């Protein structure tokens, strides 16, 4: 388990008093068909971008709440880490971006029939968002709209 003890004292104190956003009520979309027939999308908050895409902007107060679309045929090793947080070790994901954006692993699972298909696009966020109102009111609905348009059945969400 990740532990708060991993973080510096200043951040631990911030987290201790942080008003986490409680999801209420908790929505629930039951699985409608076997996963071998489902279309899957990845949503990762590791702040990865493709070459040519704008990096996430750490000057935005409360956190950059934008997102990037990562096409299904993206070469995972070319995805770039633009998450500026110094609170965690970036070495693993820079060595192998599948650690936070596992397109290669999911392609392998698609090939052996564990999942039906990978969606044509996946979503990349930068998760250090301390003021989540804009994430809730703008980003999440926009992201969901894209995946609904694509007839996505299931989503795997990966924090960092």
């Amino acid at each position, binding site marked *: *388990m*990740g*532990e*708060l003890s991993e973080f510096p004292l200043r951040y631990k104190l911030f987290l201790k008093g942080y008003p*986490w956003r*409680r*999801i*209420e009520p*908790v*929505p*629930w*979309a*039951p*699985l*409608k068909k076997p*996963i071998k027939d489902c279309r899957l999308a990845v*949503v*990762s*908050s*590791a702040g990865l971008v493709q070459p040519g895409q704008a990096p996430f902007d750490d000057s935005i107060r409360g*956190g950059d709440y934008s997102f990037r679309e990562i096409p299904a045929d993206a070469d995972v090793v070319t995805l770039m880490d633009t998450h500026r947080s110094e*609170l*965690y*070790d970036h*070495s*693993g*994901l820079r*060595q*192998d971006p*599948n*650690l*936070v954006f*596992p397109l290669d*692993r*999911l392609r*392998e*699972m698609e090939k052996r029939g564990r*999942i039906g298909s990978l969606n044509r696009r996946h979503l990349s*966020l930068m*998760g*250090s*968002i*301390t003021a*989540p109102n804009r*994430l*809730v009111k703008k980003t*999440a609905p926009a*992201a*969901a*709209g894209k*995946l*609904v348009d694509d007839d996505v*059945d*299931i*989503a*795997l*969400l*990966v*924090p*960092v």
Partner: protein
Amino acid sequence: MCNQAVGLVAAELERRGISTVAIQLLRKVAEKVRPPRALAVPFRHGFPLDKPDNPGRQHAVIEAALNVLEDRRLQPPAIVDYEPEKKKGSGDAI
């Protein structure tokens, strides 16, 4: 914060009919934010799928996440702990 961010997006996806499973690195945060389905993993921040360049370990975590989606006994909000024993078993099967 990352745990909260993906949880909040997962909630919106579920409202729109997409079934989700969110990996969570801090169980205590998952308990407070309450994403619909969470797989709580025992890894440090920066390593949500266990180890870099280790497809077997990464597959095992994803497989456990898919199992959460398939478990019809679960009720919202559901938090399932990733079990190292299962990880080994799933890893061997791949």
